[in-house]
């Protein structure tokens, strides 16, 4: 599943798209997501995908999206075959397979262009409790730190003669114990230290904490949001009332 995480990790960018209000980016991704569910033919879906590629180009993440698409396609080949085996319908199986790719791309576009900081803002707009938002923030913040911990623990244990890849499946699982225990212990110690630092900096002191940054949708953000809704309306209308373009 490593490829999937690669398709969803934020990397800093400086495109027009990156600078959009995170809520607008969420809206665009959500609309694209819904549109992929509305389409009736592969041809229509290809139009939607072409649109996504255009968005990716604006966001200067074409190469990353391309990689995600290629990697997802291998997975959706399996979906295609399973579908074909059950339905014996070539076109609908094909549609399902490509739809999977489109769904992954639409969500991935949001995550790879939205910083965790902006994600937090989005969560706040949905009025999620501060504890939930903060738990999310720290979880994401400490992923790289914990990965580093894991490497260091594995190095230390390998240096004491532990061979992780040795033996059958059961032996291998047992081999992980000397890695997992220090990892858990370290996480517990770390959360203790975090709790102390949070407490020392008045976490939870007032029911409604203030915020240093405020995302206020600019005129451009609003214009983009309106355009996105308009395009969606046109797409939804034509997919329903215009004759479906059939697969040649």
């Amino acid at each position: 599943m490593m490829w999937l995480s690669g398709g969803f990790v934020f990397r800093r960018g400086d495109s027009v798209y990156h600078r959009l209000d995170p809520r607008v980016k969420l809206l665009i991704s959500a609309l694209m997501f819904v549109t992929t569910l509305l389409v009736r033919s592969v041809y229509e879906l290809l139009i939607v995908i072409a649109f996504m590629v255009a968005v990716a180009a604006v966001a200067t993440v074409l190469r990353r999206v391309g990689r995600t698409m290629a990697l997802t396609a291998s997975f959706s080949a399996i979906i295609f075959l399973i579908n074909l085996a059950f339905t014996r319908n070539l076109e609908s199986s094909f549609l399902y397979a490509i739809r999977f790719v489109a769904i992954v791309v639409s969500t991935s576009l949001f995550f790879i262009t939205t910083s965790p900081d902006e994600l937090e803002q989005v969560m706040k707009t949905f009025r999620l409790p501060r504890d939930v938002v903060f738990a999310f923030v720290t979880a994401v913040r400490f992923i790289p730190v914990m990965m580093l911990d894991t490497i260091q623990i594995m190095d230390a244990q390998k240096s004491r003669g532990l061979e992780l890849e040795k033996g059958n499946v059961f032996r291998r699982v047992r081999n992980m114990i000397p890695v997992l225990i220090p990892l858990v212990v370290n996480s517990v110690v770390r959360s203790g230290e975090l709790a102390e630092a949070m407490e020392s900096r008045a976490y939870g002191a007032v029911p409604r904490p203030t915020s240093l940054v405020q995302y206020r949708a600019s005129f451009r953000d609003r214009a983009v949001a309106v355009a996105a809704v308009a395009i969606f309306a046109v797409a939804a209308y034509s997919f329903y009332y215009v004759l479906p373009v059939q697969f040649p």
Partner: protein
Amino acid sequence: MIEFQDVTFVHQNGVKALDGVTLKIESGETVALVGENGAGKTTLVKHVTGLLKPASGRVLVDGQDTKATSTARLSRKVGVAFQNPDHQLFSESVEEEMSFALRNFGFPPEVVRNRVAWGLELFGLEEYRKSSPLVLSGGEKKRLTLACILAWDPDVVILDEPTVGQDSLQKERLAGTIKLLKSAEKTVVVVSHDIEFLWPIQPRVVVMKAGKVVGDGPAPRIMQDEALLASARVAQPQLVEFHRSLSSKPLEPFADALEARRWVEGAFRP
């Protein structure tokens, strides 16, 4: 013998952690590896036991290329004590913790028993034999990790920042252990920022900066090379600074305060 032949290593994020390192450490030598954080010291150490493999160049341990063998095999010869004991302690008891590596290396049970008993005694940990390693203090944990490594009697012992978080009494004990290893003709490599700790040991000093070895030689020579120390952001030992500031002085800087006192007595007593 450990040999680095023009070794280069690049991290996943594209940072060149080792950049053409060539270095030879003979058996029985005591070497201090110094340099600021991020200079590549730990990356270098990880190459010795094959935890990292060079992108180009070769690392040889007793003539064997680390690429052609396993970390487990290399570790039998080279014991590495990493900086943070919490990254390795996991057993139910101190005794079990010490037996872990010995069992991995396939020592027979009676040897395991003897070695564990020896290590516990040497490091003053006998009273904790049955306790969980997690209840030990920071200093005791550090000693335990060292005991764990010495128990399998490796030819080379590498200590990564052994003095971090240690008070002066614990440091003295550690210096004693290093002397002991020296007299047992072990090869000892100490990675440390703690220049004041390293100086009385008078090791060969290897200075690293941005993935390169920029200085290599006996402690007195390296520690008097101010331009080198400044460029690598390494501190100068206080006694070397004192020696430098004297207008008439002995050829070599003083290894410890007692030596300095003796010289001052002779030179300044009216």
